[in-house]
């Protein structure tokens, strides 16, 4: 990884509003300074609920700055679409990774870690670790 390049984050939700809001939330909680790119890919291109490979692809391309892309997803077709696109081989930037993480908490952890200069492994691990924080 060259100096200054950071892992990009893509947030895939069935809802455009959810993806945009979680990106905003993550930016807000990640604190000030120069943040890593976090791109929402929510809903379908016509504004409906669902998953769009087109929106995911363009968000991943925009998030890729040379250090890889961590993709967080909500559920169902969002998970399956990203997996299918990754299996395709050439549909997403080469170092894109589906990260197994809770959507909201994982987005915050991923953005904090990516903004601090963590590599893709570190970003993925931080996002996944968010599962370990129990709430009861």
């Amino acid at each position, binding site marked *: 990884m060259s100096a200054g390049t950071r892992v990009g984050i893509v947030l895939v939700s069935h809802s455009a509003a959810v993806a945009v809001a979680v990106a905003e939330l993550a930016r807000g909680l990640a604190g000030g300074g120069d943040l890593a790119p976090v791109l929402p890919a929510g809903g*379908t291109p016509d504004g*409906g609920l*669902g998953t769009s*490979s087109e929106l995911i692809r363009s968000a991943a391309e925009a998030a890729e700055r040379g250090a890889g892309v961590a993709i967080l997803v909500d559920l169902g077709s969002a998970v399956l679409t990203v997996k*299918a696109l990754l299996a395709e081989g050439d549909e997403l930037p080469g170092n894109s990774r589906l990260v197994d993480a809770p959507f909201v908490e994982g987005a915050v952890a991923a953005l904090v870690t990516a903004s601090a200069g963590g590599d893709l492994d570190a970003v993925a691990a931080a996002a996944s670790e968010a599962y370990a924080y129990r709430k009861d």
Partner: protein
Amino acid sequence: MGEGTGMTETFGVDFLVRWLAAVAEAVDREADRLTELDSAIGDADHGANLKRGFAAVTTILAEEPPATPGAVLTAAGRQLISTVGGASGPLYGTLLRRTGKTLGDGDRVTREQLAEALGSGVAAVSQLGGAQVGDKTMLDALVPAVEGLRASFGAARAAAEEGALATVPLRARKGRASYLGERSVGHQDPGATSSALLFAALDDVARTEGAS
């Protein structure tokens, strides 16, 4: 078109294109029924989603005609992943794409080769969704259909339809329907139902060729 005079019958690009066109027609015809089944245990978009996806498949195959049977299915699979917008897109997309890749770049395929390749496609679907036979998913139709196809197109159709009907008493273990638990029992799975349409269309197209 099927070719065979006592020798093993083989199928070319035209056959695969006509199969997918027949699927598009069937999905269009049955869209309301698929959506109705999906409204009972899913999110009521299966018919509309597949209709949009297979219409887009028909378009891309007309605009950019692939050169081999494998390429027809690979292109169709990619198109489904791109256009459906629901879980059925990556699932059916993976089925066709993996089947196409397994067929390779031969000009013609036998029914047995198609069955073999579809077997690998079905395995990829199972891996992608993490589902098995009995989970009340499309696999309940696909797995027996592929077994049936090793014998004949008609056997594949019958096995798929039987598999789809057999999902009625099952409890869903995957997808949105699984949140319903016991309340998913008593409804036919929409994905298994649409999978049966694929094999009914395949049998129809084979019959018009005089193939079995």
